């Protein structure tokens, strides 16, 4: 029982990353009809926003006086952090410690800007082009973006720690009457789950309860009619692209303490998020979220020893098996609309 609860938690946590990425992808599909292979790269850039901010906080200059010698026996100069000089030791240390949550503020404008530039500068010219061309150009862009990151940050993962206060783990088991250590879960992963729930809720509320969102939803359903009504739907769709980029970016920022960001993490998530989107059903936002959590939970259960003993290697393929079963039983995924990307 405790093992099942634990894997449920795990699944929700994994699912929240999948759902966030898939949500952005679906927004782009649904509004612009574009297959965005660069979406994983946006997630990766989000994570590197967190890395960049902590790099900015650790900008330093060399101390005037040497202290000791380095590994070659030459005099060594300590690094002195600018933020500690400017804000004092305590405030500087606090800023450094909280750099990941602070990067959220840093990442939103950057990701929105990247989204706008991408849409206006590149994607706009591909609305009328075949999906194959969209795939080629966004895939090219994804490669370029990750190579640029690799050029500046190297190929190794870069550790990006959560604030000290959230580094431990929380013992759920005791709360529910199990033995100690039966169900423990890291604070940061719980925060990640809450954060993604907040973002997903926010996006849905925005689309549901604002006039802007209503127009966008109308545009998703029937772009031409909305255009005929004299509404500039393109402009709104551009903004939605920016929002989708920001959602992917925020998913990346908050993911940085869970796994150290590296330049190819976007590609690792790309295929998976496409599977999630399609299993959810093309063009359906609730479908994407539902599929994200469903696949996350199933993936977690498949990695249980009890399951692996019966079906060896099932955790390697569970996502794909589920995708095949769902697509064969439900022609348009869980909640897909007819006629979207079916040709």
């Amino acid at each position, binding site marked *: 029982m405790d093992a099942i609860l634990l894997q449920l938690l*795990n699944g929700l946590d*994994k699912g929240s990353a999948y759902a966030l990425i898939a949500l952005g992808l679906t927004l782009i599909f649904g509004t612009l009809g574009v297959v965005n292979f660069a979406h994983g790269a946006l997630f990766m850039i989000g994570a590197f926003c967190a890395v960049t901010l902590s790099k900015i906080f650790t900008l330093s200059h060399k101390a005037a006086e040497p202290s000791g010698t380095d590994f070659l026996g030459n005099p060594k100069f300590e690094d002195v952090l600018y933020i500690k000089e400017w804000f004092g030791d305590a405030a500087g240390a606090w800023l450094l410690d909280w750099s990941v949550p602070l990067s959220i503020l840093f990442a939103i404008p950057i990701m929105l800007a990247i989204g706008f530039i991408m849409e206006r500068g590149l994607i706009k010219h591909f609305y009328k082009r075949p999906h194959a061309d969209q795939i080629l150009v966004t895939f090219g862009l994804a490669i370029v973006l990750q190579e640029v990151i*690799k050029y500046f940050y190297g190929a190794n993962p870069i550790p990006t720690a959560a604030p000290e206060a959230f580094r431990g783990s929380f013992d759920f088991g005791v709360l529910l009457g199990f033995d100690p250590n039966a169900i423990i879960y890291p604070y940061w992963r719980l925060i990640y789950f809450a954060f993604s729930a907040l973002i997903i809720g926010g996006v849905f509320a925005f689309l549901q309860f604002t006039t802007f969102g209503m127009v966008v939803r109308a545009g998703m359903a029937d772009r031409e009619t909305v255009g005929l009504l004299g509404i500039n739907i393109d402009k709104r769709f551009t903004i939605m692209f920016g929002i989708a980029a920001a959602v992917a970016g925020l998913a990346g920022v908050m993911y940085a303490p869970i796994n150290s960001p590296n330049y190819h993490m976007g590609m690792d998530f790309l295929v998976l998020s496409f599977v999630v989107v399609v299993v959810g059903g093309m063009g359906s936002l609730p479908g994407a979220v539902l599929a994200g959590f469903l696949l996350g939970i199933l993936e977690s259960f498949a990695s249980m020893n009890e399951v692996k003993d019966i079906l060896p290697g099932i955790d390697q393929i569970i996502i794909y098996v589920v995708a095949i079963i769902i697509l064969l039983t439900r022609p348009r995924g869980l909640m897909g609309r007819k006629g979207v990307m079916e040709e």
Partner: protein
Amino acid sequence: MSFSNLTRRGVIKTGAVAGAGLALPTYLSAAAHSGFTNAPTGDTVTLGFNVPQSGPYADEGADELRAFELAVEHLNGQGDGGMLSTFSSKALEGNGIMGKKVQFVTGDTQTKSDAARASAQSMIQKDGAIMISGGSSSGVAVAVQGLCQEAGVIFMAGLTHSNDTTGKDKKANGFRHFFNAYMSAAALAPVLKNLYGDDRKVYSLTADYTWGWTQQESIQAATEAMGWETINDVRTPLAATDFSSYIAPVLNSGADVLVLNHYGGNMVNSLTNAVQFGLRDKQVNGKNFEIVVPLYSELMARGAGKNIAGIVGSQNWDWKLENEKGDRYKGTNAFVKSFGEKYGFPPSQAAQTCYAQTLLYADAVARAQSFNPCAVVEALEGYEFDGLGNGPTLYRAGDHQCFKDVVVVRGKENPENEFDLVEIVEVTPAEQVTYPVDHPMFAGGELGDCNPGA
């Protein structure tokens, strides 16, 4: 459907234009023939350095490449000579190899067998490389080793840790300086016993592919021999990035030691996840919970940051060896000095093994007085040397594996900088990690005969 006809007509024109532009005179003459593949003819000799330059191991590949460049510099008599001055053999004179200036070509393995072989092929077929070295994973090493055997050039393996490289997949033209999974386990077991006692229960996570299995098998055999119990071994997918669902059940399993048979990105992520779940702070069975990472990569360890504090593992070499463990490891400081002065930071174990391999190859050629791969094989087989940083070392004839001391390290609690993440706990002497050529974990293959190629 008329458009396709038109398209095709356009194509013919494309082809015709291209054909006219590329037309060349075709007077041909007969080819020369030599005794072995890529025999150096002019006053230069070309070596091929095939390292990962894209993909997750790109930084490791970059460090290997630095070491190769340094080795070539030293062979050609430039720079401060590095380990040439401490190397026990004095056959190399700093005038290239047998008077021929050393040149090199580089390629990208992408850490994929196919790409690595394509890259090695181009070095052999196009650039005339007579030796291939480098690599950062066992799959690639085994694949390229097989290719070199067929093509008739020497392969000096870079970083490859699987037992198979000099076990079931060993080849006469291939040589490995790096240590292997069996040696890691044999070196770690006594140290683990000292540190954590002889009554421990192990839960292990193993990367689900050949290297992971040989590593797990080796560790289980070695730890069980000293009284530890293995209560579970879970295979994890190579593509996994989040190990939470594998880590989560560990605490409640009754185990008090977690062994992570992961390397590279897998290692960074699984270790980070394990620390996130607070395993390091827990007490199980009245003992502190411990994590062991049998194969340490200091470059990748940087990615795990503070999480490696207190975690034990093994290395082929460490740049602090000579300072801390004395004269036996001479060469270390000479190498660290020339590497550090050129690049500004200390070398990794990957760099050291690649540097040593290049020197060993050049030395073997110089001693054999021939570039013929069979002569080189003969010169390297059973060769005993010293002064390359690992202490006295033997290149065993039976399987082309180097036998030398293994370094057991532990992540520092308070590292001074990003290059000084580990402290040396102990050095396990070569005798303790030596095994017979026909050990069951290495059985199933044979070296065959050396192949000089054409």
